[in-house]
């Protein structure tokens, strides 16, 4: 196996990731890429406590993740790579050739507009997603595996909300 899901989710490790995707995909490790969490031991412990004992969690800054991506891709187990924002995923995609990106959750906050029940975007984030797609990355939104993937065009048009 390898990294089977590249997910943007501002809640990072939470129920949908650990249970919703983790169980059907037999996920055995999570690579959490976040500059803040990578530098905060207490935050890492918090996220570790949220996963079952058989699931490993690795923490990296974006720069560090680029250097270690090959190791995770050659892992014999199935894993999820998580970022909390679009910019971090874009950086990884540009440096290490990610072909598909899942928007799992970007929630309401000032400056963002609702696009889907679980996706809210600011104008600069919309531009980042378009740029990601323009580089050939297949971007869809899907909160849980049983949901229908929503194309980026439909996400941005807000037609599915």
């Amino acid at each position: 196996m390898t990294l089977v899901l590249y997910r943007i989710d501002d809640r990072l490790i939470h129920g949908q990731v650990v249970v919703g995707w983790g169980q059907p995909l037999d996920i055995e490790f999570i690579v959490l890429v976040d500059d803040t969490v990578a530098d905060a031991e207490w935050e890492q412990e918090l996220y570790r406590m949220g996963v079952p004992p058989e699931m490993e969690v690795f923490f990296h800054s974006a720069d560090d993740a680029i250097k270690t991506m090959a190791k995770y891709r050659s892992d014999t187990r199935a894993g999820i790579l998580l970022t909390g924002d679009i910019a971090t995923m874009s950086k990884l995609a540009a440096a290490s050739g990610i072909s598909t990106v899942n928007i799992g959750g970007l929630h309401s906050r000032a400056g963002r507009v609702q696009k889907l029940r679980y996706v809210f975007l600011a104008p600069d984030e919309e531009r980042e997603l378009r740029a990601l797609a323009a580089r050939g990355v297949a971007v869809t939104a899907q909160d849980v595996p049983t949901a229908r993937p929503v194309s980026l065009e439909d996400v941005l048009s807000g037609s599915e909300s």
Partner: protein
Amino acid sequence: MSSDEKQSDQPPRHRAIVAGHGEFAAGLVSAVQQITGRGDQLIPVAVHKLGVADIEALLRERMLEENVRVIFTDLQAGSCTMASRRILRGTDDAVLIAGANLPTLLDFVFAEGVSAPQAARHAAERGRAAIAVHGAGA
């Protein structure tokens, strides 16, 4: 005894927050109310559409507003649990019970003679023990 004195003997109206995925909180509090008539001790909090920072802010605000020191959540890996653990960091008088179920809350709302955190710890044990398997070779 005056009516004021009688009131002071009663437990605070709100004693804990219940938070979790979907309508978990509202559903459990509704069940507690239906079974015991004591659902008003619990504050259901839904976190649809919120990011982690906003979940934390919302739970913190409700705790302060209602002066409660107990949070029940649904899932150890859930966002409400993560947010609650951040809130509890550095506090020594609050309790988080992750993985709460209906028996947990039923025990809690009847434990009026002790502090809410004490009641929550007892209720957690009761909730853990209340899971039973029947049938299919059990």
